[in-house]
């Protein structure tokens, strides 16, 4: 039976010769992780199951990133619960304030998930690491608890949709525009329960940060995972980050797909998802005159160094529009430091932006940029649901770092081309 790339990785981790779509299997896990919101529930369930010790402390990672530095007493209590569990279980891989970063940026950076792994995380954007050629997917806290206790998780083997990318991205168009375009095309449940497998010369032309952004938002199309074919870009990235041996899996030539889409990257335009679903996409050219109150550049979707670089290219030497609050959040301590060394932080502050320590904060309406009634934000985050960033009558428009930076300068949804000219 020919298999997709995701199926091959799952079969290898289930100790099976082959698997087929719909089959229920138990897989061994290379990484199990959670954050300050999902881990306390997982710890409670872990104890309810009657376990004392995690199966393998080297495979378990806890990252405090959603509400840290703690926004209130309850958030502090949740981090304390995680901190105590990490100490008790002797987890090396515990990332607290000062060492933390946004989990989906930090995990690849630290080499905690590598090419060929099966990874679960109690956070829906765990699908990000498919960019490395790993099978990774978001689960809930009880799955995390079971994973910590046994080193395993149950999966229904997914079928897949294949995306054959051709061409290469035009200037000011990035991975975010690619994935928004795809979600606009197939809808927020277009890949429900399925893998999204990316291949073709266009896929190979994408940088690792762009691939991470594309896979990050696979969940916004309902997908179980997103995954890129492994190539020289993957291997070069892993040479710098991986501390373990890689396992390279390739889809069979005759693997079956539920659908195949061909997308010419060179035809893509800067894209924005209008409220209140990521599928409500328009190109910036079609956006019309949408005045904004806030811009957020950061998150697990677009908080990488390349994202900061793209924002800097637009913001340097310019100033954000009057009445616009621009919030920039590098995703990890390392990225923050690199931004500092590159002079971006100075550029951002001189442009009238604030720069924050890494946090998921505003993306999910936690803190650090909550919207009031009727306010609009252009954000490089991943969701624009009702009330996502604050008041139920506020609006979030999802876009790339270049588009978000240009919008901050113009005070309305705008493309980088309009600013740079």
């Amino acid at each position, binding site marked *: 039976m020919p298999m997709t790339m995701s199926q091959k990785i799952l079969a290898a981790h289930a100790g099976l010769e082959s698997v087929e779509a719909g089959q229920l299997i138990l897989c061994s896990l290379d990484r199990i992780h959670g954050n300050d919101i999902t881990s306390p529930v997982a710890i409670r369930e872990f104890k309810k199951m009657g376990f004392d010790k995690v199966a393998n402390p080297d495979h378990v990672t806890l990252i405090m990133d959603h509400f840290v530095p703690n926004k209130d007493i309850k958030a502090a209590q949740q981090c304390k619960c995680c901190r105590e569990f990490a100490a008790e279980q002797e987890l090396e891989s515990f990332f607290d304030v000062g060492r933390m970063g946004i989990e989906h940026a930090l995990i690849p950076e630290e080499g905690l998930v590598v090419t060929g792994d099966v990874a679960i995380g109690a956070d829906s954007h765990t699908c990000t690491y498919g960019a490395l050629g790993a099978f990774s997917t978001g689960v809930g*806290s*009880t799955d995390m608890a079971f994973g910590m206790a046994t080193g395993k998780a149950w999966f229904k083997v997914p079928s897949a949709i294949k995306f054959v990318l051709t061409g290469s991205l035009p200037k000011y168009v990035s991975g975010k525009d690619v994935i928004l375009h795809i979600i606009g095309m197939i809808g927020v449940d277009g890949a429900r329960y399925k893998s999204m497998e990316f291949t073709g010369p266009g896929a190979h032309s994408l940088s690792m940060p762009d691939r991470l952004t594309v896979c990050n938002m696979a969940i916004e199309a309902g997908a179980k995972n997103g995954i890129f074919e492994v190539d020289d870009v993957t291997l070069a990235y892993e040479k710098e980050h991986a501390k373990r041996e890689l396992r390279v899996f390739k889809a069979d030539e005759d693997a079956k797909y539920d659908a195949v889409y061909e997308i010419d990257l060179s035809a893509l335009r800067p894209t924005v998802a209008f409220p209140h679903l990521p599928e409500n996409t328009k190109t910036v050219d079609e956006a019309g005159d949408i005045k904004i109150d806030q811009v957020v550049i950061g998150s697990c979707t677009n908080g990488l160094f390349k994202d900061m670089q793209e924002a800097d290219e637009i913001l340097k030497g310019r100033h954000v529009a009057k009445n616009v609050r621009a919030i920039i959040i590098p995703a990890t301590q390392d990225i923050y430091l690199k931004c500092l060394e590159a002079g971006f932080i100075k550029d951002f502050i001189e442009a009238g932006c604030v720069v924050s320590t890494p946090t998921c904060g505003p993306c999910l309406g936690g803190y650090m940029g909550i919207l009031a009634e009727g306010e609009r934000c252009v954000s490089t985050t991943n969701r624009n649901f009702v009330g996502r960033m604050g008041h139920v009558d506020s609006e979030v428009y999802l876009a790339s770092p270049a588009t978000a930076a240009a919008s901050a300068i113009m005070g309305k949804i705008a493309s980088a081309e309009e600013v740079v000219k």
Partner: protein
Amino acid sequence: MKCTGKTVKYGDNVDTDVIIPARYLNTSDPKELAVHCMEDIDKSFHSKIHDGDIMVGGENFGCGSSREHAPIAIKASGISLVIAKSFARIFYRNAINIGLAIVECPQAAEAIEEGHTVEADLDAGVITDVTTGRSFKTEPFPDFIQNIISAGGLVNAAKAGIIG
């Protein structure tokens, strides 16, 4: 599993941010979460729900964040069953893992209106809209998943050594 209750109905793509907004995720206490369940799309939810009531949703119910707080909040509100045209996958497995009864039944989710009385017998695979007298067939879960459901969720299944 059998249950009877009045229905509350929502549309397509009900996301976990509206089921339980992130501003309340600084706690995981089921009772506290239940107080804010659905409030961003239905302010009256908490006050109008009675124990045993049944929630009906459209396509892709529970999409978005993986927060298990969402099915926990629904369960703690007293909802005995969620019927939807389809479920988002993380919500689907979270509901099974924590023991919140769910069933995919597009015909029932389409036909049943808000405020109807519904009876469901998931073992027999039948949902009945008592208000209209219409019945709908449901597909059984695969054995592997049914074993987790029968154990009362993944915690009990793990304790009993059913999987692992």
